[in-house]
């Protein structure tokens, strides 16, 4: 019985050692991967920051004003004016297509304000 236990224990130790060896290298590969990815993330973040700065730079009010002035004949953009605010009631209700009038009828209407 005893030799069997020794042999099983020895095999188990060898198996575990092999597993630990592989895990060690797998961990190192994963760590390398992580640091590479982090470098990539940092690069992308930097690029993002540059692009955000560039977006802000290209959309600066002074430049937009120059562009609207330069392209006035094509775009015709003017500053927002108070008169451009509308009421919802001023928007025309989409008209349903009326059916064709086949038999005309005479209608007599009275305006209400004519008879107070």
């Amino acid at each position, binding site marked *: 019985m005893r030799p069997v236990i020794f042999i099983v224990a020895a095999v188990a130790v060898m198996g575990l050692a092999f597993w630990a060896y592989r895990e060690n290298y797998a961990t190192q590969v994963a*760590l390398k991967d*992580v*640091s590479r990815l*982090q470098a990539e*993330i*940092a690069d992308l*973040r*930097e690029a993002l*920051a*540059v692009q*955000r*700065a*560039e*977006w*802000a*730079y290209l*959309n*600066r*009010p*002074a430049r937009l*004003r120059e562009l609207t002035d330069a392209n006035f004949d094509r775009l015709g953009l003017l*500053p*927002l*004016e*108070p*008169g*451009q*605010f509308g009421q919802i009631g001023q928007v025309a209700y989409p008209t349903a297509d009326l059916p064709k009038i086949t038999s005309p009828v005479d209608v007599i209407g009275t305006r209400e304000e004519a008879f*107070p």
Partner: protein
Amino acid sequence: MTRTPLRPLARILQARAAGENPDVIERENLRVRHEEIQDRARSRAEGRLLFMGVVFFAAFALIGARMGVLSASQPEEPKIAASGAQILAQRADITDRNGRVLATNMLTHALYAQPRDMVDPKGTAAKLAKIFPDLNADTLERRFTDGRSFLWVKKVLSPEQLQAVHEIGDPGLYFGPREMRLYPNGKLAAHVLGGASFGAEGVNSAEVIGTAGIEKAMDARLRDPAQGDQPLALSIDLTVQAAVEEVLSAGMIMMNAKGAAAVLMDVKTGEILALASLPDFDPNDRPQPLLIGDPGDSPLFNRAVQGVYELGSTFKIFAIAQALELGLVNPETLVDANAPMYWGKFKINEFEGHNYGPKLSVTDIITKSSNVGTAHVALMIGGLRQQAFLKSLGMFDATPVELIEAPGARPIIPKRWPDIVTITASYGHGVAASPLHLAAAYATIANGGITVKPTLLHNAPHAPGIRVISQTVATQAVGMLRNVVTKGTASMGDVPGYAVGGKTGTAEKPRRNGRGYIKDKVVNTFASVFPTNNPQYVLIVTLDEPVETTGPKPRRTAGWTAVPVAAEVIRRAAPLLGLRPEVEVVPAQAITVSAN
């Protein structure tokens, strides 16, 4: 364990037979038993002590070993932890209230040299001078060859310059990464942002520190690593700020002014939506402060915050509002306004020697901007109460706005407060404050009488203000301001749909030597509130030394200079603020229909 009896019968009988005392045997046995108990207890205690000793030794050994390992090992960043944005940016961005970028960081490089590694100092110096026109080839060559081992050549490089320096290919030239503060909008809101520069510099990085404006005032917040990835949102609205600056700049040129300032503020929260001061500068390339002359003429000078001027008649509404609050007058009370008024050796005149008297109603004092009428009202209030009221409006202290310049701009208040000061202060002479002070005070009136603290931070928690005048008085005061525009001195300030109300102010500049005033140098101010039927915004426009020259003789009153500019600012800015123009309802004429 066998328990031996204390009085074993056999020995007792024996002892009795021998005529001895059997108690001796019992005592002997008792002693033996106690000794055994003692021995057992001692050995157990010794075992416990040993166990504790081993445990403590192991614990201390473990701690000691860990400390040793920690002190001997190299520090290393944890590799597995996720990286945050703050690793990249050491200074938080600044955005406007809608998240549009006002200040951000860019990664660039600094150029330094180690002349000992240089192959060709002379050629390198010449090539560098060709890339950077501001460098001198001879100076550079001298510095490369005078034996020093290190020198900075350029603090920031553009990518093109970096490439050009790379192409020189000298091994003695090195690049250090630099984080540079960038203001993508150029001159926009320059005085708010201030600027930034490098603090402590090293080869691998440099500290970025704020030098002025909000960059310096909020330096600790912007550099806080814990909040590095959260931008600082200002109350400024980029679009509104741009429109205000554009109109103000055009107005300044048209009115031949040497400077201008504007403050647009939300009356409910005290958030400043636009703060402009002209002339301005580019914070990316902040100019040097003036060494000679008046620092007030430098573009760095923030007229809206630092410019402490006598603001003239715009102060009149404070005296009137206080008198209404104290119940001394009502809007229809007639007050003596017979000009000129004599007080001791002083003579108080109206504008251009007019006389609006002999009696004016309180409403008309504001509409016509009568100095004499206001003076009489102020005398009714008295100096002590007047001072307390102006103090409660914040006129005696520096504004609490988040700019490094603000605490230095204290209003100029006379030390003593005799009656003549009560009179002059009531119409804004002898007391000087900044346009921002005026904005805060007008916001208090427009906010229904509750004080407002000006702030540049969006959605910052603010303590509720204190009530200084009642809602009724505030409404009456705003109504009087509306009257000034509809039929008073600011008739050019009317913007259809926005029911602008406001008060003009024209103050002559005091002479440098403190003796009297310069006649043809004035500061024109228009303090306005809109829309008056439900006040939401306060706009202050100040022009420095304007003159309007379309008429036969030059005009220097606010009604001709600051008011049209302010009206144009409101016309442009109000739609951008989402304010819908409202048609003012004229009270219908009562018509009696008689049926026949």
